């Protein structure tokens, strides 16, 4: 046991000396591994980041909420078929609200895009969400300041607004949005609430952080006709377990409202988070496979580079190998020596790559969600060691099986 430890330590010393003797060559060889490990670490970090961000985004939608819409989020149905469906309108919503008994809350939703101003600050193309006061019950919103607009404000189509956290921080860097009067398009609105940060950058404009919430009547009054565009009905079940029952009831109620006979297909779609998760999973799995394949390829190229250099190194040191064998090195010792050399090169390269990856991911974090984790660090170390062993195996074996007589005579 102690002799193996001794041999290992000696082998490491020999490897280290060999690497130092050929600094430039070792550095060039490491480059392949540095790039490979950097790519692998960055890619797994990015994948983790995407996963986390999707998780946040999707959970913001709520697992117990249904979205009754003219449009299906993900469907194989013909776009044209959906395009030709009759719009859902406020009439549909009101009848739905009366008939559906299971939901915890229902809310009509319509959207518009406007520029928002406060003083000389301004945010363009803001997504306005118009709904009823019950909308907040279909979400998991928390409030930084104030409250959601009330039933009275909603029914009266008052000019009141609830700001997403990012909109608020853009217009009111000092966080004093409450009760201020902002301009949405041409009209003045009073800020009654500001949401806490909700989450995901991936959802883009659909991220509540970038939205402004106002009563639906106010949208129709100021920004678009009641008869233009369609309304989505958000339905929250009383519990996730009751989601399927709520969905079945909603489908029946909607078919009745839309006056469909039993052989006609639905002219609406009931969307839910589940579909989104599946859809996003199918996208990310492609990203993951492509990413890992490409990064794996760069690692493979790095490994070939190392194998190449190790072959040269073995050839160059033929006489040294002969001598070592003549004075008592066994095959195993020689094999270990060269395996250790390639492993040390790869390990150093891997650690440098890891440092690069961490620095890069810190920089990228400004634009893109990333997260470095311990398991990635361990993964990088294992990958570089494995690359070292795999790429060093063939050259080391060549060295180990050399005949000492021939090796000593080699010029």
């Amino acid at each position, binding site marked *: 046991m102690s002799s193996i430890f001794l041999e290992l330590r000696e082998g490491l010393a020999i490897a280290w000396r060999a690497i130092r003797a050929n600094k430039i060559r070792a550095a060039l060889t490491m480059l392949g591994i540095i790039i490979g490990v950097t790519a692998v670490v960055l890619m797994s970090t990015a994948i983790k980041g995407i996963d986390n961000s999707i998780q946040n985004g999707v959970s913001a939608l709520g697992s117990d909420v249904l979205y009754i819409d003219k449009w299906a989020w993900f469907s194989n149905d013909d776009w044209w078929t959906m395009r030709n469906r009759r719009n859902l309108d406020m009439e549909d919503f009101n009848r739905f609200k009366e008939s559906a008994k299971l939901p915890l809350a229902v809310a009509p939703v319509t959207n518009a895009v406007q520029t928002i101003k406060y003083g000389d600050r301004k945010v363009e193309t803001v997504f306005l969400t118009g709904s009823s006061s019950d909308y907040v019950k279909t979400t998991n919103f928390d409030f930084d300041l104030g409250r959601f607009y009330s039933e009275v404000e909603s029914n009266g189509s008052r000019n009141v607004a609830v700001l997403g956290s990012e909109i608020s921080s853009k217009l009111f860097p000092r966080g004093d949005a409450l009760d201020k009067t902002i301009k949405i398009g041409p009209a003045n609105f009073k800020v009654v609430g500001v949401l806490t940060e909700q989450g995901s950058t991936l959802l883009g404009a659909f991220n509540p952080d970038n939205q402004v919430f106002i009563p639906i009547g106010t949208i129709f009054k100021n920004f678009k006709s009641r008869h233009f565009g369609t309304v989505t009905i958000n339905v929250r079940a009383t519990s996730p377990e009751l989601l399927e029952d709520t969905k079945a009831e909603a489908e029946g109620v909607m078919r009745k409202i839309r006056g469909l006979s039993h052989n006609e297909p639905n002219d609406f779609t009931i969307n839910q988070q589940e579909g989104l998760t599946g859809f996003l999973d199918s996208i990310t799995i492609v990203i993951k496979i492509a990413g890992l394949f490409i990064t794996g390829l760069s690692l493979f190229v790095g490994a070939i580079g190392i194998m190449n250099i190790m072959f040269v190194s073995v050839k160059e040191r033929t006489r040294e190998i002969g001598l070592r064998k003549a004075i008592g090195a066994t095959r195993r010792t020689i094999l270990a020596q060269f395996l250790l050399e390639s492993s040390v090169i790869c390990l150093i390269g891997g650690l440098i790559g890891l440092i690069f990856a961490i620095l890069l991911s810190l920089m990228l974090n400004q634009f893109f969600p990333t997260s470095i984790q311990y398991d990635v660090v361990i993964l990088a170390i294992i990958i570089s060691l494995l690359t070292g062993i795999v790429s060093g195996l063939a050259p080391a074996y060549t060295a180990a099986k050399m005949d*000492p007589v021939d090796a000593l005579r080699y010029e």
Partner: protein
Amino acid sequence: MNIINIEHIAKVYQVGSEEVRALSDVSLNIDKNEYVAIMGPSGSGKSTLMNMLGCLDTPTSGIYDFKGVSVSEMTDNELARIRNKEIGFVFQTFNLLARSDAIHNVELPLIYAGVSKLERRERAKQTLVDVGLEDRMHHKPNELSGGQRQRVAIARALVSNPAIILADEPTGNLDSKTGEEIMALFHQIHEKGNTIILVTHEEYIAEHALRIIRLKDGLVEKDEVVEKRFIPKEKIIA
């Protein structure tokens, strides 16, 4: 008991479809504290015999006993062990590790023998002192003269207290004065009780030994005692 006992060994190489008999039939014994020179023209089989004696190669047929143990049937690992413990090689081209200093070069056999670092250092230092290099321990080969390099190599051969020192043309790459120094060193090593086998093609170098074995065409042509032995005057060690 003889250290080396060789009976009717032959070595046949297969070169393409042709058989080359490097050694046809060689028998010899070498005793403890002998000083033997092996001579012969090129192609006589002296290199092959030397590789055999040094356990770098095994005979095709015949008996080779080293300290009473048969070498012919040894595995690679057993041969490596014998080379490490029982044989000290000195080469014409020194074969030092260029990137390592003298002391590390001398330590090398002890590393493979699994000797602890402290003991290794101590023994390597002492051996370097013995060959007169106490002030060159941390010099690399390119900072040493040819004679000094060969002395490092001799120290490396001596450090593990081997049963035989096997020197292959040790003066071949040195000028005659330096060569004489090296031969003086071998003389002293022999005086201290070591067994030396010297492979050379120079009559005058061979005459430093006590016995000359002359090879020709893979056979022992002559095995004779040196009548007028050349005793070097130079003293390396005070």
